[in-house]
């Protein structure tokens, strides 16, 4: 039964991805492209050589962070749509620290700066959390509003107090995350992301606090009746979710972008949500799907150059994956479908 459940949890997103590629191929054919050739360029762009592969890893890093942020919040039943704002605020805090505490040397500055990102993200996640548990506000609306505020605030920073030179952008940070694979841009952030994913996985599925958190996400009333501190756990998961996204922003700043400018973090929040949902709210699944999204993003440019097809074809494929994955998950949960699948597996069990 359990293996059956696990199988479905993997089969649904895989099918969703395949289906999306199929629809994408049809779409490409419709606008006069050659699907096979397009996909060839896509994968060449993503894996063709070491530097291409490096780019996909670089692109995957921030997506893993926002995906994990979304996963962690949803596991506890709170919908954090504010990962983008938390990501941006994390980066803002890091810029502040990096340009203010110039007396510190490289590594300690980097650590302080990353920590400040964690704290800023956590604080930005605290707001919707506390408003939800004390005032009963819809956390989705609050976190979305906070996204816009954070982005405007970042805009204020790079055009105002932290502007560097004529262009609307900040100065580059001096403390940078180490690059360690040949001459690719892969930086230590990916290791942080992977370690974080593992830690979260073990926390959620192998500790009793993680158990409680998941219980709250599945049934708040029963959790309350069974003595769990429901509101505290919800607030905690919001803060941690925000902190993860904030760390992501800080890592992106110190590892890839180095400065704040228009478009920093654009779309990472919603992509994180999509990744979490497609990854079936599992930290490991999140990493895999984040990597897939990065492949699509990195390959899209090569495809555009090679075939003249717009990159937004790939955006569509990405969007279709979420449409199919969510619909698929709902479908296998329909009462009679669930019954059917349960029968299927019990028959299998009998045969064995």
């Amino acid at each position, binding site marked *: 039964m359990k293996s059956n459940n696990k199988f479905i949890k993997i089969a649904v997103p895989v099918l969703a991805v395949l289906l999306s590629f199929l629809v994408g191929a049809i779409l490409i054919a419709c606008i006069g492209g050659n699907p096979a050739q397009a996909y060839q360029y896509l994968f060449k762009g993503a894996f063709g050589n070491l530097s291409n592969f490096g780019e996909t890893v670089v692109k995957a890093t921030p997506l893993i962070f926002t995906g994990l942020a979304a996963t962690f919040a949803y596991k506890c039943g709170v919908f954090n749509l504010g990962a983008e704002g938390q990501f941006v605020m994390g980066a803002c805090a890091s810029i502040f620290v990096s340009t203010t505490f110039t007396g510190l040397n490289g590594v300690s500055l980097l650590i302080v700066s990353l920590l400040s990102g964690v704290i800023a993200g956590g604080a930005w996640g605290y707001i919707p959390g506390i408003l939800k548990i004390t005032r*009963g506000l819809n956390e989705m609306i609050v976190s979305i509003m906070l996204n816009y505020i954070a982005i405007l605030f970042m805009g204020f920073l790079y055009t105002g107090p932290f502007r560097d030179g004529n262009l609307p952008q900040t100065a580059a940070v001096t403390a940078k995350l180490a690059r360690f694979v040949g001459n690719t841009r892969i930086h230590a952030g990916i290791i942080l992301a992977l370690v974080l994913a593992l830690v979260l996985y073990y926390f959620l599925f192998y500790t009793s606090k993680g158990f409680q958190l998941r219980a709250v996400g599945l049934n708040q009333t029963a959790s309350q009746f069974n003595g769990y501190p429901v509101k505290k756990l919800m607030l905690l998961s919001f803060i941690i979710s925000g902190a993860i996204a904030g760390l992501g922003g800080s890592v992106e700043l110190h590892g890839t972008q180095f400065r704040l400018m228009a478009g920093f973090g654009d779309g990472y929040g919603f992509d994180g*949500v999509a990744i979490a949902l497609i990854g079936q709210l599992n930290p490991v699944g999140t990493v895999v799907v984040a990597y897939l999204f990065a492949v699509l993003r990195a390959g899209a440019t090569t495809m555009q150059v090679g075939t003249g097809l717009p990159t*937004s074809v790939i955006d*569509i494929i990405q969007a279709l994956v979420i449409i199919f994955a969510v*619909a698929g998950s709902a479908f296998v949960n329909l*009462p009679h479908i669930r019954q059917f699948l349960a029968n299927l597996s019990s028959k299998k069990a009998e045969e064995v």
Partner: protein
Amino acid sequence: MEVFLNWNFIQELILSTIRMATPILIVALAELYSERAGMVNIGLDGIMAFGALIGFLVSYSTGQPLLGVLAGAVGGIVINSVYAFCTIHLGAEQIVYGMAINIFAPAIASFLYKIKFGISSSLAQATLMQEMPIPVLSSIPVIGKLLFSHTPIIYLAYLLVPLSYVFFSKTKAGLNYKAVGEFPKAAETMGIPVVRTKYLACMICGALAGIGGAYLTTCYISTYSDGVVSGRGFIALSAVIFGRWMPGGVLLAALLFGFTDALQIRLQVLNSSTPYQLLAMIPYLCTLFVLAFFGIKKAGPAANGRPYFREER
């Protein structure tokens, strides 16, 4: 200070409040119709983006902004029927699927725009809808210019408020409609077609949200760009909560949010020394404060957001 008391300033402020409130009002009404049938749709932003694009394309190609708005409505319906099918028939969680729409619809919109106009960065311009002053009424001094010299969409939006009130409070169809959002099983046993009503609700929601999006590109600004909606769908969502699921309340909430939007634009024009980003935060901050202080207590339809299966045991 005297700039603020300037009659011209006030008049401009009122006019742009009415204009800025319109998309929020239309989309909040869309959500109202959806939630009254128990369908929470947080995909409004996405539907608006799609409506904005379709509206723009049609208006650009035909030179008829009104046709664009109509097409926006159709586009909204098409997108929202994906949501309708997956939530009503497949029983997908409404919140999750709404979010999926928020990711899916803007991607399609952006794709179609690039197909049409290529990857070039120059923005295509469409004609904006002409204002249509209402004869006689528009010549009333002061009020005439403020209230009766607008585009037809604005009249439509404000007319929808009393119409919706009458529908929900005075008609049998409205009563039946509300019963679906309150207690679908009871409604079903009373012979009310629950599933059909829910689909209808999604169609209305899609059409209105599509119009709300198309308004942005046919009546407000003459170009389409990704992110043109900028969270208005979510502001509309809060307008429904703040307006306590009543058409009149939704109108007040939309006007309030429209006012803050108008105010920040007017202030930007007047006050170039303050960084515009700080002023642009006003509508979002205001939404937060309004919600935090007035938006509490669950008052929505009792079965809001819950899936409905007739044969559930």
